[in-house]
């Protein structure tokens, strides 16, 4: 196949959709009003645009628009959920926060910071597919537990968590439930009322809106303590002049995802299926990581024996393919990804990990090109590997 550019790292970020850009453009140009400046129409129009976006995001989640609060990123939403709830008066001094070993660093490092403040943080184990251990959750909830935070779907291996089951357990025990849905929002159905979610974090740039905008769904009645104080925007929950163009973009991107989710997910899932079947049948000593069925439509994560992930993605880059790895050598710490360790992979297996995340702009030709190049690269790297055995 002729050389092409294939972006297969959509879990890292996505391109801004043309229709999203069109929708936000006026707010980058003529419609520059401050939503708080309500005495003139320019400001009123900006305010209306933000409220329209709030409605659009709420609709996809089955939430009330009053329950959506715009933030600067998914990471900020996670920080606000964890710190805001643990610090709020509503939890009545309860000190335990329960989360999992496979969360994104936005959760893990925030939980660590809370532990340093004296909070009691428990990290739940997961099984070999990356599904949270429900018995461990039941055992971890005690009288002192304020909040449980479990991601909706994992960024590395794509495994989707049983959110309804987790939420029910939390509510039976009078505990709040937060989910980091940065990877899942817009890609799989998430109805906060049906699932029983109290707080949910989401991000714009994973659904074709720009970077630097996110939102937190906060169930009506909850009062997490703000982490950013100031002019009292977002009903005092998140001060700072609203990022109107990006909020408009997030709203539009959410609306599009809500409308097309079923069709898009089916398409992306068929591409991933083609990729997984192709890789596993053509490349010896390869395996899929994460849950075989219950996974994000676009996620294909693999491990290959006798090769190292960084040299794999560097070679893919030379062929025009953008991909990711959880290999130790791709990080400054020289430790393989905590997710791959938590699902029970040995260090030497985790070193050969590759994550390919597809989305709507990808095609079958992209998939076939990836398989062809991957086969060639693995053959070359394995031939120069002292540990390769056929």
């Amino acid at each position, binding site marked *: 196949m002729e050389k092409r550019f294939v972006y297969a790292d959509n879990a890292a970020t996505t391109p801004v959709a043309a229709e999203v850009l069109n929708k936000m453009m006026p707010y980058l140009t003529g419609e520059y009003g401050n939503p708080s400046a309500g005495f003139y129409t320019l400001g009123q129009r900006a305010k209306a645009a933000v409220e329209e976006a709030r409605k659009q995001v709420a609709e996809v989640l089955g939430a009330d628009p009053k329950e959506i609060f715009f933030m600067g990123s998914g990471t900020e939403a996670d920080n606000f959920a964890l710190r805001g709830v643990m610090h709020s008066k509503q939890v009545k001094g309860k000190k335990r926060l329960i989360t999992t070993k496979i969360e994104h660093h936005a959760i893990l490092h925030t939980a660590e910071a809370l532990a340093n403040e004296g909070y009691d943080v428990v990290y739940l184990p997961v099984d070999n597919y990356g599904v949270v251990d429900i018995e461990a959750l039941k055992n971890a909830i005690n009288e002192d537990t304020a909040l449980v935070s479990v991601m909706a779907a994992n960024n590395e291996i794509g495994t989707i968590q049983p959110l309804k089951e987790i939420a029910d357990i939390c509510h039976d025990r009078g505990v709040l439930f937060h989910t980091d849905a940065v990877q899942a929002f817009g890609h799989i159905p998430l109805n906060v009322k049906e699932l029983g979610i109290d707080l949910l974090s989401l991000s714009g740039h994973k659904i074709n809106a720009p970077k630097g905008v996110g939102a937190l769904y906060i169930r009506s009645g909850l009062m997490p303590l703000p982490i950013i104080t100031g002019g009292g925007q977002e009903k005092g929950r998140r001060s700072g002049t609203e990022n109107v163009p990006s909020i408009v973009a997030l709203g539009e991107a959410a609306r599009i995802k809500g409308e097309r989710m079923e069709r898009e997910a089916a398409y992306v899932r068929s591409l991933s299926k083609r990729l997984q079947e192709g890789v596993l049948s053509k490349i010896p000593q390869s395996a899929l990581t994460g849950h075989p069925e219950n996974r994000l439509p676009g996620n294909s994560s693999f491990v290959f024996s006798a090769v190292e992930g960084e040299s794999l993605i560097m070679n893919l880059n030379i062929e025009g393919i953008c991909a990711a790895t959880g290999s*130790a050598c791709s990080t400054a710490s020289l430790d393989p990804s905590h997710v791959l360790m938590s699902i029970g992979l040995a260090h030497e297996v985790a070193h050969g990990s590759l994550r390919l995340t597809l989305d709507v702009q990808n095609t079958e030709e992209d998939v076939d090109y990836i398989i062809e190049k991957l086969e060639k690269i693995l053959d070359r790297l394995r031939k120069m590997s*002292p540990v390769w055995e056929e």
Partner: protein
Amino acid sequence: MEYSSKVMDHFTNPRNVGEIEDANAVGQVGNLKCGDIMKIYMKIEDDVIKDISFKTFGCGAAIATSSMATEMVKGKTIKEALQLTNSAVVEALEGLPPAKVHCSVLAEEAIKAALANYYKEQGIDPTPIIGCTGNCEHCHNHD
């Protein structure tokens, strides 16, 4: 990782890859758990490294340092090869990111491990000649 163009050159077109069938000096350092293993093959005649090759499992820097280190000692005497330092390899590659400097240490150790094997095969204790022979520095980040 930001690599120099020299590293990318040696990563993309590694020199001296493979095995030498009649090698009389073979050394391997590193381990799978750490994520990099280097194996060096040499054909030594009259104290001169006539031929050299490598096989490496590892990241871009591991492959590039293996390639560069073999280039630097090819055709040299054992004495000259023993003077190869990891910083000389880094310099020849126009620098390595700090997290990758250990790869150059591994390359130096792989050369020494092969030379140690050469002496051992002749019944000579390599320690007084070579000193540390591999895995001295590597992988201290792990248990």
